[in-house]
Each structure stands twice: as C-alpha cells, then as structure tokens.
C-alpha cells in the first residue's frame, strides 16, 4: 500500500468486544453483560479464611465474593451458600471452583434468559483471558433486559406509527 508503518490487530474485533471496550455503530448502545456487571464486587485470594472474607463482603453490602489470583484471573466464586460455611475454612476449600464465566459483549437479554432458565444467582464477567471485569447479578440482568425490551418496543412502535 506504500505505507511504512502497518500493523495487523490479528485478534480483531472479537477480542476488542470480549474485553468490554467501547465501540461505535448501530449495536454500540445495546446493553451488554459487561456494562451491567457490578465492578465493585469484593474479591479474595485462595489462602484467606472464609470468616474474614464473609465479614469483608458483608461490610461492603455483598453476599458474594469472587476468588482471584494476583492478576485478577477468576479462580472461583463464593455465593451466599458458600459464604455461610465454617469461618475457619480456607477459601480454596470453601469456594465453587472454576465457575462458568461470560464475556462482557454478550447481549443482556441473552444473559438474563440464561440466568433465569438455569437459576443462576450471579456469574462473573471476564475478558477472554479470564480477568475479572465484574459480577453480573440476575436481578440486574433481568431489569436491564426488561428496560431494553420496553425501549425497543416503544421505538419500534414509533417507527411503525411514523
């Protein structure tokens, strides 16, 4: 092409979307898991004690905690059931290991449907490398999906009337 500095972003648009980064275009405003996930979810490490983690999570108003390594890669999840375990347990013993995670670019309607159908209380949202972005709560996903569908119906109705 006669250009001296040409680069190939080989991982491409899929990688960009999976990292939850901003985009432009018709679908840019569609609510996605990454935008709805709560980024202030508490985290803990494998070698902590359950009692300490529960105390910290409750003090922050949470009944869940994501277990991560030093790079914030998700290792496990403590939902309300796990947090009620023996206080002296190590997190490694108490956690739900290797939880299902979802990428931030998944449409929120799809996420809400999945979480309701499979009775999932919360799920970590991560980059393709497994790095935690936030925790998506079912109640947030359902509310965001309902809001999107209502707005979509109104806009669609307006177009049809117009």
């Amino acid at each position, binding site marked *: 092409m006669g250009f001296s500095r040409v*680069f190939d972003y080989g991982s491409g648009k899929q*990688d*960009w979307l999976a990292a939850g980064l901003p*985009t*432009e275009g018709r679908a840019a405003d569609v609510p996605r898991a990454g935008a709805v996930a709560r980024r202030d979810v508490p985290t803990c490490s494998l070698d902590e004690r359950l009692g300490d983690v529960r105390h910290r999570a409750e003090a922050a108003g949470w009944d869940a905690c994501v277990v991560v390594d030093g790079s914030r890669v998700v290792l496990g999840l403590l939902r309300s059931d796990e947090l009620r375990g023996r206080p002296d347990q190590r997190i490694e013993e108490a956690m739900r290991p290797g939880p299902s995670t979802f990428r931030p670019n998944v449409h929120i309607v799809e996420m809400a449907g999945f979480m309701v159908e499979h009775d999932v209380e919360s799920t970590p949202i991560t980059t393709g490398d497994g790095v935690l972005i936030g925790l998506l709560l079912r109640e947030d996903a359902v509310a965001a999906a309902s809001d999107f569908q209502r707005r979509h119906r109104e806009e669609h109705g307006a177009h049809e009337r117009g």
Partner: protein
Amino acid sequence: MARNIERDEVRRLVTEGAQLVEVLPKEEYEEEHLPGAINLPLRRLEAEARTALDPDRPVIVYCWDDP
C-alpha cells in the same frame, strides 16, 4: 509486511494518532466497529487505501479475528 500486535498496543498506537481500518464488509462495520475506525473492505483496500489513509500515520488493520 504488517506486524501483528495485541489490544494494548492498538490502544497505545491509536492515542498516538494511528488510523484504524476495519476490512470486514460494510454491513458488519455499520453494526459495530472500533471507535474511530474507517471501513475499507478487503476488495476495496488496495484501490482506496492511498486516498482514504494518511501515509504519514501508522495504520492498524483488523477483521473479526485470525482466520
């Protein structure tokens, strides 16, 4: 020969003025693309790159992912 780069370097180069080029078809570009990217589908790339792009600035080409 274009050098392969990862997401962090894309972000850094863009802040330094690099031009992003999505080579996917127009419909996919219009649906969603990286901020500031222009659309030059592969079949138009050779013919239009010289007029659409500034040769003095870096160019980052991307599609959906590695084939």
